[in-house]
């Protein structure tokens, strides 16, 4: 009775080479099947001996585990999991924030005190919403980078939002917050956090990676306020819009195509 237990212990160690989702889904069956093969080898029902069976099991794991890891990464990178309704709603807030940011920088269109405040409030809310919605996908690729980058976006955008509400919202004559020293600091911190977040989100690849790159470039330009400020802020808006579209989009892994036979 000790042989199966020792076999199982060794084989379970080998199984650690597979990604966790695959292991938890099929680990029990893999252990059982490997046990069947070793039993056949011991009882002479297989042409292979015990040693050759073990070598075959090791080779089998060595050949299939890397491919399964690549498959898991491919799934995570291409955002193939369907978006939930919560994600879609969060993405929509992000798109709205980006649109208002871009619109506010089109000269003579909607530039007024009311819109100035509104666009910043929605922008901060949108950035926070997208960062929350994208976190599970980013974390499945690189947990620590995703956590730090997301925390940065949440904290700095929340800080900026609080200052906007505290400085501008009180009744009285219109007051642009740029003159407040703490507001300037919060802006730089927000652009910096957005740039870091965009860099971390590059790993999403494809269209989402391009959106992340736009966000990063826009944020860097926005920090260089004097030279590229307006262009940078507009790019940040475009970046958040594109990321919001990716968050809200429902993509599934392509499956074999079937047609109605009638």
């Amino acid at each position, binding site marked *: 009775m000790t042989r199966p237990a020792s076999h199982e212990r060794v084989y379970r160690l080998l199984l650690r080479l597979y990604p966790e989702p695959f292991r938890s889904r099929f680990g029990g069956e893999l252990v059982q099947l490997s046990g069947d093969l070793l039993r056949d080898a011991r009882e002479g029902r297989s042409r292979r001996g015990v040693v050759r069976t073990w070598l075959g099991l090791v080779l089998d794991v060595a050949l299939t585990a890397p491919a399964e890891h690549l498959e898991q990464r491919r799934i995570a990178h291409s955002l193939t999991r369907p978006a939930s309704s919560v994600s879609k709603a969060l993405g929509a807030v992000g798109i709205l924030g980006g649109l208002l940011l871009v619109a506010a920088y089109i000269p003579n269109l909607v530039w007024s005190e009311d819109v100035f405040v509104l666009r910043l409030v929605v922008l901060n809310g949108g950035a926070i919403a997208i960062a929350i919605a994208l976190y599970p996908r980013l974390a499945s690729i690189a947990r620590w980078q995703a956590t730090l980058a997301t925390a940065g976006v949440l904290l700095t955008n929340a800080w900026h939002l609080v200052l906007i509400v505290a400085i501008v919202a009180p009744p009285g004559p219109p007051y642009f917050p740029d003159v407040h020293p703490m507001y300037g600091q919060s802006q730089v911190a927000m652009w910096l956090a957005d740039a870091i977040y965009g860099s971390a989100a590059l790993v999403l690849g494809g269209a989402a990676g391009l959106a992340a790159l736009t966000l990063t470039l826009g944020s860097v330009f926005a920090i260089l306020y004097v030279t590229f400020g307006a262009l940078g802020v507009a790019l940040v808006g475009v970046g958040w819009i594109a990321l919001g579209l990716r968050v809200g989009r429902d993509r599934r892994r392509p499956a074999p*195509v079937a047609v109605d036979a009638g």
Partner: protein
Amino acid sequence: METTARPSATPPLSRTAVHVLLAIGPEERHGYAIMAEVARLTDGAVRLGPGAIYTTIRRLLDDGLIAESDERPDPELDDQRRRYYRLTALGRTVAAAEVRRFETLVSAARPWALGSAVE
């Protein structure tokens, strides 16, 4: 309403996936039975390990070509822990498309390949 795969639009499966799909066939089979059936169908030329079997099963499940059977075998006849897999309607049509591909290939190659082998 039954559906059938359009062969020209069906993504080609890997060789291992075709082996597993055809090994399951019209039956409900567990991993060990699939492995034994692949060896039998290929006259022992192809022997898949547990990892190859279950990474392929995972992919076929995700693509909707096979499904886990709800029924469990009689505990006196088989281990209750085993999971059984069967082809879905889509899996059957994809398997049929693969067989047609093989038939076309074999009928095209048979005259010269087997002819020259005999000579």
